[in-house]
């Protein structure tokens, strides 16, 4: 794993008697799109707000590139760009004026850099219009533009797909991929939209009721427990009998027009030969991973309410 760009150590937030964030500790490696996943109320937004200093931590530390956010706020923030929920800009200023305003607090953001960022996010045609005329997608992009002006190592986006239509979501995903590739950014995205996360993230941390449940990579993950083979055949009952005899009754189940066999991908050639050898018509046979949704629901026990 690459060196960690953000380290959370025992981050806790207590309100009244409850720990709404409870001893979170994990590392986020550089150069990845990292997801915070969890049901509503799990503490994802609170954690993000604590990392960027909007909410105070009851206990614990967040360390960005070796700098603690609590001890050295100003230095730590030079490494971070963030959008917390929807990015609100000054509506009476133009997009460009907004960027200039936010650029001023960082040293070393030149006019050339502002223009570069505007182009990167595709805003050059409308950048000199007042923000009140922008669509939500454009404001989202302007928010991202504002966050990356100072070339941070870490970009944090809290529920960035809120309110975006599918095209907008797709666009955002593409920009984020471009940013990780071209600017060498690490991106943290928090969301409860599993399908989106599946497409966007390299790795996710699953958070529930303020506690860390698991951290797992997404692409190329060998989910051994969930590995399945889906078989599409002409004669379902016969196939079922045949397969049950080979792998065991409990591992074969019917789902709609197909059969599901709990087995690894390596078993496919063998199973195919068997079915064909028995004279059955095989229309399709392939391995499936459990979707993130299934994994997630299983881990969190299907509980959505805190």
């Amino acid at each position, binding site marked *: 794993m690459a060196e960690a760009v953000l380290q959370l150590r025992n981050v806790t937030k207590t309100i009244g008697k409850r720990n709404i964030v409870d001893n979170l500790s994990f590392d986020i490696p550089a150069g990845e799109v990292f997801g915070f996943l969890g049901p509503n109320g799990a503490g994802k937004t609170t954690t993000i707000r604590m990392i960027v*200093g*909007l909410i*105070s931590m009851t206990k614990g530390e967040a360390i960005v590139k070796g700098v603690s956010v609590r001890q050295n706020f100003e230095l730590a*923030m030079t490494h*971070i760009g963030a959008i917390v929920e929807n*990015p609100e800009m000054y509506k009476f200023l133009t997009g460009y004026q907004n960027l200039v*305003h*936010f650029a001023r*607090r*960082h040293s070393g953001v030149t006019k050339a850099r502002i223009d570069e960022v505007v182009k990167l996010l595709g805003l050059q045609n409308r950048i000199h219009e007042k923000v009140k005329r922008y669509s939500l997608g454009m404001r989202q992009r302007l928010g991202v533009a504002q966050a990356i002006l100072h070339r941070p190592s870490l970009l944090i986006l809290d529920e960035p797909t809120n309110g975006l239509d599918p095209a907008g979501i797709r666009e955002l995903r593409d920009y984020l991929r471009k940013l990780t590739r071209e600017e060498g950014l690490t991106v943290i995205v928090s969301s409860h939209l599993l399908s989106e996360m599946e497409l966007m993230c390299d790795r996710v941390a699953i958070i529930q009721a303020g506690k860390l449940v698991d951290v797992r990579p997404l692409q190329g993950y060998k989910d051994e427990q969930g590995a399945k083979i889906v078989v599409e055949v002409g004669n379902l009952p016969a196939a079922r009998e045949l397969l049950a005899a080979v792998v065991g009754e409990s591992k074969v189940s019917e789902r709609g027009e197909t059969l599901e066999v709990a087995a690894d991908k390596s078993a496919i050639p063998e199973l195919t030969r068997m079915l064909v050898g028995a004279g059955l018509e095989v229309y399709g046979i392939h391995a499936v991973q459990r979707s993130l949704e299934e994994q997630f629901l299983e881990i969190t026990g299907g509980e959505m309410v805190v």
Partner: protein
Amino acid sequence: MKIYRRPRTWAMVGILILALALMSGVMKWDTSKRDHSDWKQDLTQQTVSMQNQLGKSSDADPDQRKWWTEQIKLNQYYLDHDLNPNVMTPWSYVNTSASLIILVTILTVIIAADMIAAEFSWGTIKLLLVGPASRTKVMLAKYIATMIFALLLLLVSFVVTFGIGAVLEGFNGLSLPHLAVGADGVVHEGSMIVNSLQKYGYGVVSLLMYVTMAFMISAAFRSSSMAIAFSLLFMLVGNTLSGILSGYQWVKYLLFSNIDLTQYLEGAHPLRPEMTLGFSIGMLAAYYIVFQLIAWLLFTRRDVAA
């Protein structure tokens, strides 16, 4: 940029200029209705009547007697030096505009009340605080920006009334001295500029206190409308309140009893006999420190959760 790119701000400046123009117009119209060609005779008549008053009522209010004595001396000076006291010069307009500082105060209070609260109302506070500047720095920057605006309005006030005065009266009389009876009982010639600045100075003290109070309310309530309403409310009601309560000893510890420093000028009465200029300045300084402390604590220590 955020202050000056709003049409509202320029509307305020416009209102100020309009008010000043109106005031000057009324002044001019008023003096032109009176006939001052016989000023020497007027002065002599005034002097005689005042000397009569002095002779008759030896047990009159000592301040009143003092005022008469001084006026007699001044009149004599005017006659001796052939100076017409009724001549309007640009300075006449500037001096009267000092009483319009209340308008400058109200306008600046509106801006100050919005400074912090509006960022919360707009939601832009999230972006503002997530940057490489400590909250203390952000607050300081906003305070200074507010004060610069106040200074700008004062400058506009001074320059515009001088300009209008010059247009209406021409540039004659610019070098006319300001006459006052000094502590030694002799009439002194002083500079009109200094005199105008002194009058402005007293107004500026109350401006400073009201604006700082509004800034604190802005930090406390995080709501524009609350902040503006409360600030204006205190401004208008405060003075009346301390007047009503002037029978009580402790009224001298209230902010509003001390905010008008002109009560210590010649010929005016302080609210309570035991109050002195030094005392008031001390009280004001104490209130100032408390206001800034409260604003700072509320701004830096509270979570931004919404």
